[in-house]
């Protein structure tokens, strides 16, 4: 069975219909969060740091935090929200009484998580521009990295969500997986100045590192061939996880 685009879109529309009712309340925190980060870290901590990576600390942080916003937008959607739709709202049981198939559910949910990632990321991007931290126009090249980061973390999150028995497991996902990524993915300090040798290679495993590095390259305007490796990592890890999630979604929704 393959994906039917109109049916996947119907899944997306269900989520959009619910989001539309409360979008004002949903979208506001997306603006507060970056402002708070930039104030505390950029202007607070940054006052004690003259330069990092050849720029002000706030300017160093900005591209990485945009990726984090995209990661968070996708992650909340494919963890807590999907689990609620799966178990409490039984939304997928309802969908599967119609021509919608499990593959359509997966495609629609990934598409919706991407949408949320783009909303989060775009809000952050706007704030970064308002703070004067985005060198325009070249920083605009970072915009396509928002959906890429969203896709990667939508796939990681959904593959996890489809295989856990209870909603309590998500606290592990956030504290033992996303938080370390947030702290050690080149966002707060340049990894290659603090790590050496084999550790630098180990760090390449971290998923968030790749979108962050691409976003920073866009902000600095110094593209290097490593962008190809970053792109290949994001796309191939997403593709592999999607294949795995396809099996998971069928096992979870049908028997």
């Amino acid at each position, binding site marked *: 069975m393959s994906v039917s685009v109109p049916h996947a879109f*119907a899944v997306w529309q*269900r989520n959009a219909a619910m989001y539309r009712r409360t979008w004002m309340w949903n979208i506001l925190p997306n603006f507060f969060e970056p402002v708070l980060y930039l104030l505390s870290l950029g202007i607070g901590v940054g006052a004690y740091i003259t330069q990092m990576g050849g720029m002000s600390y706030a300017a160093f942080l900005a591209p990485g935090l945009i990726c984090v916003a995209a990661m968070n937008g996708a992650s909340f959607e494919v963890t807590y929200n999907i689990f609620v739709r799966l178990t409490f709202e*039984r939304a997928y049981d309802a969908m599967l009484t119609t*021509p919608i198939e499990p593959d359509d559910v997966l495609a629609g949910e990934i598409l919706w998580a991407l949408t949320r990632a783009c909303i989060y990321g775009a809000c952050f991007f706007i704030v970064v521009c308002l703070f004067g931290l985005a060198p325009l126009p070249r920083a605009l090249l970072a915009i396509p990295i928002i959906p890429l980061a969203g896709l990667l973390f939508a796939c990681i999150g959904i593959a996890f969500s489809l295989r856990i028995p209870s909603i309590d497991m998500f606290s592990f996902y956030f504290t033992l997986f996303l938080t370390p990524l947030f702290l050690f993915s080149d966002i707060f300090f340049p990894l290659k100045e603090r790590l050496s040798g084999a550790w630098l290679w180990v760090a390449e495993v971290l998923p968030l590192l790749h979108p962050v590095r691409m976003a920073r390259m866009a902000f600095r305007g110094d593209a290097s061939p490593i962008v190809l490796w970053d792109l290949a990592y994001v796309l191939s890890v997403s593709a592999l996880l999607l294949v795995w999630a396809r099996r998971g979604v069928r096992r979870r*929704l*049908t*028997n």
Partner: protein
Amino acid sequence: MAVDRADPPIIEAESVSKRFGARLAVDRLSLMVPAGTCFGLLGPNGAGKTTTLRMIYGVTRPSSGTIRVFGLDIGRDPRAVRARLGVTLQQNVLIEALSPIDNLRVFGRYHVLREPELSRRVNELIDFLELRSHATVPVRTLSGGFQRRLAIALSLMNQPELLILDEPTTGLDPAVRLALWSKVRDLRTAGTTVLLTTHYMDEAQRLCDRVAIVANGSVITEGAPLDLIMTRLAPQAVEIECTTDEEPGLLNGLPPKAHRLRAGGRLMIFLDDATALVNRIHAHDHGERRDLIVRPTNLEDVFLAMTGTTLEGGS
């Protein structure tokens, strides 16, 4: 009921089994639902009714056996089959934060309905299930009966040829049940084939042209409700309080083929005509009062006679 014998059946299940680990939920079940009928799967909780329904609309795969719906193999063509049927699940799956109208619109998109068809169909369903008075308030504020009507409205979105209802009136008050039954009758009259599960024998008896009694995952008997009563038991039931010691003296002279069932201190005897037996019991008791009821035999009795268990009690 006018069933054209030339019409192919809507559902054909042949020797279908479903195993979940060590548990055999459905055991070589066979079923044939003719077009235009209301067909009931009657059985206690845990008999395999819901699993059977899930296999019919293609979200549970049989471990063995084949199921054809509208003549199509459900394992091969689930999209095509589900485009032509509607399902009301046992538990409502409404979006509680949204209004009935928005719930209907979301569901219409699952069937890829587009404007203006979508709005037209939503309006028709609001009228048909009498949802107009609360069509725009969040579903979570509505009564159980109203929510159930909305759940049925959702399953009618695609004007299904086959409507599947899993325990449609469980937990509803009597007035709401009567109203829902009349809607199901309207649909059947309009030509929709209905397959429902229930553990209420009165629901099955009032709504269904045919019923299949299911226990432990297989069909133990099948037929029109009245035919089952006549062939398996007899039209009249006499219920009396009597001990096992009293029984032979009290029932002396009863035709040997008359069915008897005992549930604790209560004895039920099924007869074509109860008058003679009632007179004999009165004579035996010499005017003493004994708890005695004469009533029409019902499907619950048939079920009890065939399985030794009650429908409500479970197997």
